């Protein structure tokens, strides 16, 4: 009896520590950003200058860099991830090809991001630089475009696995009803399956978007690390995550460190919101089903 009470208290303690960790993370980030919040206030969100030497910090260049790379990566990856999920859930549900594709997307999500970055830097970057030379623009090689391309490969597994699951959940009786009316496979997909599963597909895309926003290493290695607002997709830039990775360990002053932690706090809040939205959609989908 006594032992059970202690054991139950132990279980609760574990849950409590985990809860404490999560809450403390937000509070710690907030406390450590206070010097920067006090010093720059709202200017931090509107200024496009990030200059550690002059101690002037604004997050706009990184915010725009993050949005550009993530949205570009999403746009590039959506056709592919949708195709993969339809391939696996509608066209080839079993068999050797679907096994290979299934395993390949698993592998894609298993490769460490530093390896993506390394590959991107030594294989993809020269290709982009070659294209830039042909186009007659400054051949940086590294930049927003290269980072988006790498990101798009990395996030395909996330959106495609969610989409695949929700497409599988489409009840077969309504599909069969459409077939019995003489609809082709394409029409069933377009008029029945996609409308039925669109919220789930959207949730998968949100999940992938959250990944893209916070992805650090691969982006850091190929984005070119320029602390200014990129004027075109071919220019180098920086994201919230990549500037933290680059400058944190060598932060020149306390206010620089605090500004970097404020960037971390903003990144934390943005991904929380995106994940929250995604999980709400998935939850609603589970209830509907």
């Amino acid at each position, binding site marked *: 009896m006594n*032992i059970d009470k*202690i*054991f*139950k208290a*132990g*279980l609760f303690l*574990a*849950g409590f*520590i*985990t809860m404490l*960790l*999560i809450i403390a*993370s937000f509070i*710690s*980030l907030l406390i450590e950003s206070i010097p920067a919040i006090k010093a720059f206030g709202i200017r931090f969100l509107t200024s496009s200058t990030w200059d550690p030497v002059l101690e002037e910090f604004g997050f706009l260049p990184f915010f725009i860099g993050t949005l550009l790379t993530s949205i570009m990566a999403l746009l590039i990856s959506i*056709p*592919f*991830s949708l*195709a*993969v999920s339809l*391939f696996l859930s509608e*066209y080839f549900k079993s068999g050797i090809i679907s096994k*290979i*594709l299934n395993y*390949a*997307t*698993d*592998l894609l999500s298993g*490769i*460490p*991001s*530093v*390896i*993506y*970055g*390394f*590959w991107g830097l*030594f*294989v993809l970057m020269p290709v982009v630089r070659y294209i830039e030379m042909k186009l007659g623009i400054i051949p940086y090689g590294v930049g927003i475009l290269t980072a988006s391309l790498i990101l798009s490969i990395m996030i395909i597994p996330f959106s495609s696995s969610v989409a695949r699951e929700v497409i599988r959940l489409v009840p077969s009786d309504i599909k069969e009803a459409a077939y019995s009316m003489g609809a*082709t*496979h*394409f*029409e069933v997909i377009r008029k029945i399956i996609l409308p039925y599963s669109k919220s789930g597909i959207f949730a998968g895309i949100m*999940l992938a978007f*959250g990944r893209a926003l*916070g992805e*650090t*290493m691969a982006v850091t*290695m190929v984005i070119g690390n320029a602390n200014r607002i990129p004027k075109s997709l071919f220019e180098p830039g920086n994201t919230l995550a990549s500037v*933290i*990775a680059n400058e*944190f*360990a060598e932060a020149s002053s306390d206010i620089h460190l605090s500004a970097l932690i404020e960037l*971390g706090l903003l*990144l*934390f809040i943005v991904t*929380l919101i*995106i*994940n*929250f939205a995604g999980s709400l959609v998935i939850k609603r989908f589970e209830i509907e089903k």
Partner: protein
Amino acid sequence: MKNNIGKRIFLNHLFKVLIISLSLFTIIPLFLILYHIVKNGISVIDFEFFIRLPKPPGEEGGGILHSLVGTLILVIIAFIIATPLGIFTGVFLAEVKDRFSNNLRFLINIIQGIPSIVIGILVYIWIVIPMGGFSAFAGGVALAIMMLPVVIKSTEETIKMIPDTLKEASYSLGVNYTRTILKVVIPSGFGGIASGLIVAISRVAGETAPLLFTAFGSSFLNVNPFKPIDALPLLVFNYAMSLYESWHRIAWGASFVLLVFVLILNVLVKIAGAKWRTRF
């Protein structure tokens, strides 16, 4: 409608071809990455590569022993911290149904996608600053925090699958709650919990971002958990970003080792999942 039949059938075929070609195109980057890593990596690797320490830039040869040892130490520290906390929290979520546990489950779900670089900042605030410097311990804690959600969720899912009849049978023999959980419930879910742990390890073994300002990296062989330590992914990052040709070659070799290591863990997960599947 009738006149359109040809067009509809054509569209149907066109769409199928489109889906198949886009899907197959998705595999190409994977093969390219594997091809380049294997091709450039394998030529660097010999026995010396695993037992030597790095040489100064420009000099040929040298190995990655220090970062292999470092990764091993970091993963062990993370494992020691994350396993008890993760398993107990998972059991707690599966066993206790109240508002607190519901909120906790919700928070864990949301926290799962937090960028790993943010965890690096947190551990810097919590451990590196108070302890006065970068250390293997700080790196291990960062990895442990990354492991936690995976371990908790897999434990919870596994425990939930274990039928109540099993617990009731145990109670009816006069066994108390503590022993029922420790000796009946957790052992029956061993497969699910173990494969969750391997998944978590395979996730964090390749992580770089949370180590950048916790473990920090080092070019010396270090086994002291309170000193900075190197890790395979950190080495790949630092060497890849350097300007030395000889270091780039080492980075290819290290990438190959890291990739093989992570892929073996992935295969282990599949085997463990199939062999110890929790089924009732």
